[in-house]
Structures are given as C-alpha cells and as structure tokens.
C-alpha cells in the first residue's frame, strides 16, 4: 500500500514489522523501528504503475519472530544460514554495489540458499534525477547502507506454508539459436551460438536482436531472465551474470506487457502475496506507468531476488 511519510511513521511507531520502499530522502527521515527499507521511486499500486517521491510502499510482514541484519559483500554468503527454518527472508541490495555483484555471481553456491525461502530486490533510484544513491536501510538503528545488503528474517508458525514464486512473462523463443557461454559474468565478449564461437556483440548487431528482450536461461524447465544493460565497444553488459552450462535463448517478443501480466496474474488469483516486487525494465519497456496491474502491488526494482538474482521478473512470497 502507498502511504504518506506521516502515515508510515505512525505505523512504525506501533511496533509493527514492516517492509518499506521509497526514495532515499524519504527513507532517511523515518523513525527507528522494526523495519527494513530500500530505495526506489517506482511502484505498482492498486491504481496502476506510479512514480512518486512523496509516497512510500509499506507492507506489514506476518511473523511470530524476526531478526534484521546488514551484510557486507564478505558476509552475504551467510544470509540463508541466518534465516529461520520455517519462514522467509527479504533481502534488499543496493544497485551496482560490491554486495550486488557478489550476490549475483555467487548466491547459487551459498549454503542453504535453496533450503530457505529467500526473496528480495535490488534498490535503485530515479533514472531521470541526478545525485541519488541506491540504499538499503536497517530500520532498527536507521542505519543507511550503499555498500551493504539488509535482510529481514521472518519466522512463521509451523502450520503455515511459505512459497516464493515468480511471474515471468518471458519465455525462450525456441526458434532462435541456443546461446551458451564459456565465460561467466556481467560483461561478455564471446558466446557460442548453436555451438559456434561468436562475438556476442556482433551476433546482437548482425541479427538485430531487440535488447529490450532478456536472455532466458533454462533451469530445468523454469526460465530465468538476464537483461541487457548495454552493448559498448564490442562488449555486452548485462544486469545479471550469465553462467556456464546454462542453455540460453533470446525471449519471445511481448506485444502487450499489461495484458500479459494480467493474464498470468489471473492464473494466480487465489494467491495472497505478503510481498511482491516487479522489475524496472518491465515498467519502462511495458510503459506500465498509469496502467493497472490486477494484483501483486509493491516496489519496482532494479533486479529481483528469488533465491538467486533474476531480471525482468515479478517475484512474490505467499504465507498460507
């Protein structure tokens, strides 16, 4: 729900456990309390996609116990170890920080990462305003970090079932070539296109690939998106790293993002997400400002976490 700073401060003072997304400036003015926060100026509200530096997205988190902790790049590998066995964790990571890159590259190898319900997002800034810094905030001490992630670990009753899910409107275009990589990372020179070594930037240029569409990796039947950031000087820069031995293809084109999201959401109507977030690239490429998405309201983010980093995806967690 979007709230004013005054309404948010009042709610914090009641002692409720909260997740808050708002601009860096608004987050820094909030009182101490049981909350974590991350910076963004973009939201999916019940009224539609919205850009606001006056409102905050506030979600009350259900739990019977919780802990909040900040993690440096050296500490983030422990994030799932610190999580409750029966519960979930929300992790907020500042965009382009060392901890962002560390998590993106190595989260799949963190101890217990797939054994605990881990969701989260990459905090950002207004793309048209200068002087903003992506931040994550530990509300208990109102500590503000541009170089650390902040996680809230929530314990839920044993009779509750937690599920982390994604809504991915993209799927592999099976008519396009298979793309694999011998090198891992955010910046790529070469790839293999149907097994033939190719300069990735040349492949994109020569085949007029629409870089608004992500690469979709095949994870045993689940699509995991990697978004294009730029192609510069023969190097393809990505918003998440590609991995060796994953089979990627360019995504099928999306004619209408709003329609596509709403048709996927209709299939999940009975789901009552306690937290969800959606990608800034869906917001921008799908022109979602002012458009009504039927459910899964929350921040628009600069990368999403569903166990590991994913892109151009709506992620959510349910507790039922």
């Amino acid at each position: 729900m979007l709230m004013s700073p005054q309404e948010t401060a009042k709610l914090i003072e009641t002692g409720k456990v909260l997740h808050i997304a708002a601009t860096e400036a608004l987050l820094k003015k909030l009182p101490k309390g049981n909350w974590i926060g991350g910076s963004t100026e973009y939201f999916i509200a019940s009224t539609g996609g919205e850009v606001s530096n006056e409102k905050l997205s506030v979600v009350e988190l259900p739990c019977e116990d919780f802990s909040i902790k900040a993690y440096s790049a050296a500490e983030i590998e422990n994030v799932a170890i610190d999580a409750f066995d029966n519960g979930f964790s929300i992790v907020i990571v500042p965009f382009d920080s060392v901890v962002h890159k560390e998590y993106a590259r190595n989260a799949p190898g963190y101890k217990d990462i797939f054994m605990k319900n881990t969701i989260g997002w990459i905090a950002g800034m207004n793309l048209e305003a200068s002087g903003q810094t992506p931040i994550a905030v530990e509300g208990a001490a109102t500590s503000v970090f541009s170089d650390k992630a902040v996680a809230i670990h929530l314990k839920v009753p044993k009779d509750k079932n937690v599920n982390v899910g994604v809504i991915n409107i993209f799927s592999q275009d099976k008519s396009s070539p298979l793309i694999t990589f011998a090198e891992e990372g955010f910046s790529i020179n070469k790839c293999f296109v149907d097994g033939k070594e190719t300069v990735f930037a040349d492949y994109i240029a020569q085949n007029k690939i629409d870089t608004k569409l992500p690469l979709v990796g095949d994870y045993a039947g689940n699509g995991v998106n990697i978004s294009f950031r730029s192609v510069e000087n023969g190097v393809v820069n990505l918003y998440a790293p590609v991995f060796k031995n994953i089979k990627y293809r360019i995504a099928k084109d999306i004619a209408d993002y709003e329609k596509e999201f709403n048709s996927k959401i209709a299939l999940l109507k009975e789901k009552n997400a306690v937290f969800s977030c959606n990608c800034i690239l869906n917001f921008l490429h799908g022109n979602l400002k002012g458009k009504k998405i039927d459910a899964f309201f929350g921040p628009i983010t600069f990368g999403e976490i569903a166990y590991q980093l994913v892109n151009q995806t709506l992620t959510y967690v349910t507790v039922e």
Partner: protein
Amino acid sequence: MITAQQAEKLLKGDYTFESLSFSMMLMRMKILYSEDSSPANLQRYTQEISTYLEKFKFNMGSDISTLQKL
C-alpha cells in the same frame, strides 16, 4: 529420500520441474557435477537433494511424480 542412482539420473538427465528453488538447486548441482563427477560428489548431492525433498515435498505437487519415475 532418493538413491544415488536416482540422483545421478537427475544430475545427468534433462528433467523439468515446476518448483523454482528445486530447479535452480538442481542446475547448480548439474554444473558442478559435470566438472567433478566423483563418487564423493554424487554422495553429497544425493544427500542434499534428499534433505531438500524431506523439507519441501509437500509443496512440490507434480514434481514428486517426476521424481518417483526416476
């Protein structure tokens, strides 16, 4: 609980699953197992998959029947 033989089929085969976390975990293991398919690693991944299934089997729907057919 799965056997080492079933785990090896998973690690070498092209199975598909609905569970996102299981799929991600399996792909991670497949990559590592392709680099080192020692008996010790097979034992380790068999144990990890069994531990995962013990915790999440109630939430895996049709994936369980895929696993039962291994």
